[in-house]
């Protein structure tokens, strides 16, 4: 029996990451997202004063969420289903590897790609905020108590970490759909649908407690357990207001993301094991 090997997962993951960063799409998305964040310099025209910083932070968090999620869906579908579509998976799976190693390697490669992307956006956002804060501090010193900076840069890093958890779930969902998809478009569309439903999932949770119809109740119950609640990861609003979250919140979000990703990846491995190439 061939033992399961973490080094093969790492090899596939690193190669997936290399493929992603050499993709024109990744480079284009990174440039576009950075330009979008940098465009927040234009807000200075409105002369917001210190509230401009909150606006920039909100704008940056929104950009990271939207661009990060879009990249996660597109890149994961391309990187996983692309191997099947271009038949490179035939050569790869003819090597002594378990299909679950392939699934995990692809997941970690895609996840690392989007994490890298979010890291670059965070640095960009920190730079924009620091630059504007320095300027505003000089222009409107009265708005800063004791001349102290008000932006909590550490919270921006925490926001990025939370988004990395969210992206982990989204990548695993797209991998799951890619294992039985017949086109990368299908995997992308399903990924986007889960993303949208996941964002609105708190409505299903609320509706479950309100409706009396047993069938509807079951549908809502299924939706609230089988699909992740991405709304939980929307912590940007609190962080942008300068509120710090207790570390237990981050821990809970990590466990939540870990459990959902593990579940989707386990189902994806089982599904891919049955797939005939």
């Amino acid at each position, binding site marked *: 029996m061939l033992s399961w090997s973490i080094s093969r997962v790492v090899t596939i993951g690193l190669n997936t990451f290399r493929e992603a960063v050499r*993709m024109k799409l990744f480079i284009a998305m990174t440039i576009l997202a950075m330009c979008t964040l940098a465009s927040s310099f234009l807000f200075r025209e409105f002369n917001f004063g210190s509230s401009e910083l909150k606006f920039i932070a909100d704008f940056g968090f929104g950009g990271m969420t939207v661009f990060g999620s879009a990249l996660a869906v597109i890149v994961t579908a391309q990187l996983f289903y692309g191997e099947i579509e271009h038949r490179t998976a035939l*050569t790869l799976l003819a090597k*002594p590897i378990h299909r679950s190693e392939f699934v995990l390697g692809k997941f970690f490669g895609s996840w690392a790609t989007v994490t890298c992307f979010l890291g670059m956006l965070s640095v960009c956002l920190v730079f924009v905020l620091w630059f504007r804060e320095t300027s505003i501090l000089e222009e409107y010193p009265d708005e800063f108590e004791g001349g102290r900076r008000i932006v909590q840069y550490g919270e921006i890093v925490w926001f990025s970490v939370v988004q990395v958890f969210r992206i982990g779930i989204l990548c695993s969902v797209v991998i799951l759909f890619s294992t039985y998809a017949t086109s990368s478009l299908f995997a992308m569309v399903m990924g986007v649908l889960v993303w949208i439903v996941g964002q609105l999932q708190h409505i299903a949770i609320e509706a479950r407690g309100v409706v009396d119809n047993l069938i509807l109740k079951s549908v809502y119950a299924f939706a609230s357990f089988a699909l992740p609640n991405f709304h939980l990861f929307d912590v940007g609003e609190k962080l942008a207001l300068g509120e710090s979250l207790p570390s237990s919140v981050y821990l809970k979000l990590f466990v939540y993301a870990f459990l959902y990703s593990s579940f989707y990846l386990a189902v994806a491995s089982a599904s891919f094991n049955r797939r005939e190439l």
Partner: protein
Amino acid sequence: MDMTPAIAIRGLTKDFRVSGSSKRLRAVDNLSLEIHRNSIYGLLGPNGSGKSTTIKIALGLVEPSVGECEVLGIPSTNPAARTNVGYLPEAPYFQRFLTGRELLKYFGCLSNVPKEKIQKRIEYLLNRVGLEDAGNRRVGGYSKGMLQRIGLAQALVGNPDLLVLDEPTAGVDPVGAAEIASLILELKKEGKTVLLCSHLLSQVESVCDRVAIMGRGRLLMEGSVDTLTQEEGCSSMRIDQVSSELRGSVEQLAKKHGGLVSSPSRSLEELFLELANKKDER
């Protein structure tokens, strides 16, 4: 020497579901064959005869519906069966973003080549397939022939005992095809087993020890190349290094006793076409 066959297929049948219908398509039908170690085995057949499905089953890419397939003594559904197997797929598509060297390193790592030996192995293989100057170029820019060569190198990177080569000379010029044929013969000398799928029948005839011809998923004929190309009711006699007078006398003697003197063997190509035509008539 291990006497277990390199590949043992027993009563293998594979049915595929036809999408949008309850019908099933039988790609391989009750196939049984054994490929002995240290031999070159040709798997022939027209398109749709079940060759690729048989190969995919042997490589664990597809599961059989009925029957069993063992590779180097291990069931093909077990990934361990592929530990000592190298595979060159038909029309090889590789990761286009990698350079030749990166591709070999990637597949070398997945084939469990020790890290300290991998670089040496890559250089050796690039040299062996004649791509030493193109090793730093991206695979996406390779010609068809170069893709076949890098494909051969990736199949050999783990120094496997069994090589499955699906159309290794497709898109390669005649000189390159001859080089690949001689490489296959060298591999046999090194003790390896080669399963060769090719439409280049003259090449199969010249390098293979045994041949199986498939049609509509079934095994139509199997045996050594010499046996298969021998026409029924004919026996051949090779007379070399004799004078033309003596040769003439032998021919006359044969004719005198009612014998027909002609070339007794047919080419593998003729045999293949004959079987393919019979299949169409059915």
